[in-house]
């Protein structure tokens, strides 16, 4: 699995997109976000957001 940060028109980071196409919110109760945090804890880094 790979993750990428997503920014909006204001260049604000709004969510994370996983390589299987899920848009994941920054909610600690969201199990996909928990999986992302576990992935980061393993030393991985998401791809940066594209800026406008």
């Amino acid at each position, binding site marked *: *699995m790979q993750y990428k940060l*997503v920014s*909006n*028109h204001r260049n604000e980071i*709004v*969510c994370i*997109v996983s390589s299987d*196409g*899920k*848009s*994941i*919110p920054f*909610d600690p*109760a*969201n*199990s*996909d*976000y928990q*999986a992302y945090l576990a992935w980061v804890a393993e030393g991985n880094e998401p791809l940066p957001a594209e800026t*406008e």
Partner: protein
Amino acid sequence: MTKARDLSQIPNATLAFRNRIINGDCRIDQRNAGASVTITNTGANTYTLDRWFAYGSAASKFSVQQDAGAVTPPTGFTDYLGVTSLAATSVGSSDQYVIGHFIEGFNSADLAWGTANAATVTMSFWVRSSLTGTFGGVLRNSGFNRSYPFSYTINAANTWEQKSITIVGDTAGTWLTTNGVGIGIYFGLGVGSSLSGTAGSWSGSNFTSVTGATSVVGTNGATFYITGVQLEKGSTATSFDYRPYGTELALCQRYFYSLDRLAGQTTNFAVGTCYGNDWIYIASGNRHPVEMRAVPTVSTVSTFRVEDAYSTSWTVSQVTASTSTRNIFNPSIQLTTTAPAGRLVYLQATSDSSRLNFSSEL
């Protein structure tokens, strides 16, 4: 028997939400609408029928389908969850092939597990397999450090049998009473020795089945069907807690729902405004059908577009969760090209197979 005496047969239980399992009768399959799903993701649970997940240590060893094999369900039921083994798989000591169900902590809090007042529960279900013998499963906490392995026997092949297991509540360990996993229920389909324990008592280990249980995935083409799954407070299995379809669907939608269009019709999912670049912000505040367990993950199936009042359309590259909440769907949408600033547009599916999925599963 008088009504009063009849009700007395439901000890220590309430009449409302007697069954803590949602979609225990397997009627609801929002994700797949009865299509077969091969379990390929070895890194996480794969949700199949609503509220029911599957996991396999190796990919493509079994499939899950509502009403697989099209056998007649037990009397009183219209549907079941069907597992089909896709290979003769050798199960390693740390491998596991399971189906399961997570009860949210809010729905098991009154059981008071992890305290001296832990309540006894009874789980009942109908099961049918092409194999016979001893099968197993567990009840487990969210920390994977409290497990209760249980076993049951399937006596006759390809015959529905009802099973009932009474479990004394766990007075130890940590059991969540919030919107996390309250109780995890697992049915083993082939579980290795290091994840299998002795039936009938609580353990401080991480188990997902019973030592020596029959392996469904060990036989190519083997089947394992289950329905009428009920977990209730008390030491007696009562009749299945049938709930209205709309009620059961709403219970499921706290964890997952999907938006699609009416076949062949243009359906506007949301309205938003273009920023003059490739972004559109939807501020229409569409409400989820029910308050979701967590802010949902958003994903799309097939393709979407946005279209203005003059039928000019732009292709959507992604629909993001953005500022959505547990109550409201407020996504930001990115297009493949720039759209004019200030233009009011509608989010539309491009085909009947296009779907917007919202998941806050445990």
